[in-house]
């Protein structure tokens, strides 16, 4: 248990490093803030891509066109069969006349062209939508493959290519983010650890004397860990402050832009504190296992 004099000493030593090593401390904080900023930006982009993907998946549906030579009763029987398929949430009947009216609206000024036709070329169809969990290309593809085999169906449309591409690119970006994040994280640990080693080297004499007079490793380590944690805290506040300003500006100009919640921002700051602690711990661990050079 530490006494008051020891607590005062540890607090003083933890903060003294900042005034003794202004440049090293400043550089360390900037490096940590940069690393955290890169990680946070990667996470933010991944988050927004995920939201975009969710939106795109919301439009992942099937349009099942039916043969026009079949009686209406038979076509109506398809509705419960479609609803029974896995992941299907809703089935909406769109008859040929309604499809033509919709088409006329889409043509706008060119709508008189349709008068040249002697009959309605559009078939009746079912619009099939899916539950959120089933809005994946694989699930929709499985339903499509099943329905294609039905005699009543003439053609099926769904925006597969777009969703496939989006999903593919999202996956690649997530992987790239993960790898980049990991590299940035390891680089940050390495840089912090080496910066702390420089700090420790400059404090070699005091550590040596502490070991000689019987200070425990925990006592020797504490000021350095505190220094690392405070550096992490300052770096985290700096990085998250900058990101919050940038997020506010982007939020105004980009509709639907997703930003971190205050709790998530706090989480990043805590992560940076952990990073500072880990860097200091790694550096100290190696140093404290060395001989005291008696």
């Amino acid at each position, binding site marked *: 248990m*530490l*006494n*008051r*004099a*020891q607590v005062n*000493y540890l607090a003083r030593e933890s903060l003294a490093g900042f005034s003794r090593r202004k440049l090293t401390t400043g550089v360390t904080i900037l490096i940590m803030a940069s690393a955290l900023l890169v990680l946070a930006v990667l996470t933010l982009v991944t988050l927004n891509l995920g939201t975009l993907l969710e939106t795109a998946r919301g439009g992942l549906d099937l349009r099942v066109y039916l043969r026009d030579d079949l009686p209406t009763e038979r076509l109506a029987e398809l509705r419960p069969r479609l609803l029974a398929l896995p992941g299907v949430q809703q089935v909406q009947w769109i008859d040929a006349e309604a499809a033509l009216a919709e088409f006329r609206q889409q043509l706008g000024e060119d709508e008189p062209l349709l008068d040249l036709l002697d009959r309605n070329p559009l078939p009746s169809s079912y619009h099939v939508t899916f539950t959120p969990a089933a809005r994946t290309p694989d699930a929709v593809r499985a339903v499509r493959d099943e329905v294609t085999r039905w005699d009543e169906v003439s053609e099926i449309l769904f925006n597969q290519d777009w969703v496939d591409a989006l999903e593919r690119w999202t996956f690649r970006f997530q992987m790239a983010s993960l790898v980049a994040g990991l590299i940035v994280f390891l680089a940050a640990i390495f840089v912090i650890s080496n910066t702390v080693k420089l700090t420790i080297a400059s404090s070699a*004499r*005091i550590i*040596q*004397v*502490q*070991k*000689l*007079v*019987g*200070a*425990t*490793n925990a*006592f020797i380590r504490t000021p350095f860990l505190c220094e690392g944690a405070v550096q992490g805290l300052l770096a985290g506040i700096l990085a998250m402050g900058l990101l919050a300003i940038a997020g506010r500006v982007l939020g105004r100009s980009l509709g639907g832009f997703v930003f971190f919640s205050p709790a998530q921002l706090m989480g990043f700051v805590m992560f940076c504190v952990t990073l500072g602690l880990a860097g200091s711990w790694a550096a100290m661990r190696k140093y404290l296992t060395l*001989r*005291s*050079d*008696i």
Partner: protein
Amino acid sequence: MATQRPPANPRPGPEAWSSGSTPDGRAIISFHHVDLEYEDQKALADVTFSIANGEFVCLTGPSGAGKSSILRLVAMDAFPTKGQVIVRGMPATRMNRGRVPQLRREIGFVFQDFRLLEDRSVEQNVAFAQLVVGVPHLQILQNVMRVLTQVGLYDKRHRLPRQLSGGEQQRVAIARAMVNSPKILLADEPTGNLDPVTAQEIIDLLFRVNDSGTCVLFSTHDHEIVKTFGQRVLVVDGGRLLSDERRRVPVDRSASLVDHMYRAPAEAAPTAQRPARREPAHA
């Protein structure tokens, strides 16, 4: 001032000091057939000796002989490759590494290069040794005052180490080593950077430390000091203990180190009378 003086503490019989003796119950430090290797390089081979509580022992030998390795083993900064080292009843080979700091609190260290904290005053340097082991603030102030008075530096307590002479810096180092009232003082070439007069003062101070009952293990490669040293002398070379001699009859009672080095024998003799010793400094 000679490096010779009557023992202040009861000494064990000579049989306990003979080379090759085994650790015994009275010993505060015991080496029993100790080997030490650093990365395939043998630093010590089959070293056996014991040092009793309160004894003053000179460890000598050329540079690289193994003196520092012996001190390092006593401080448990290194552990024997073979054999056993027992310090204050704690065997090195069975010692939990987490208990080493506890042991170090019972050992004081003095080095050739003083190892003071340059950015702290004399007082802070000494107080630091107490602070890290958790001595209460008021007690630190009292203890620091006491040891600085004993080494004659209380008036200079606010000075930085660079504002002191080499001898004064070494006295600060001794004060720091003694402030925790250690049972053992390890002095590694403490006179190596000092002129003979100052070296003599430091040795005299170490004797006073010993008078308080602290066991002193003093290493030097200086033949002049060893010649005038009237206590037990361990000689190491090539990692082996070559001799373990207890000088019951002083080798050179008539001359101090300074006399020995700077004065002709005829001139030195009248001044060689050792002044009456003060009471033990750290009793």
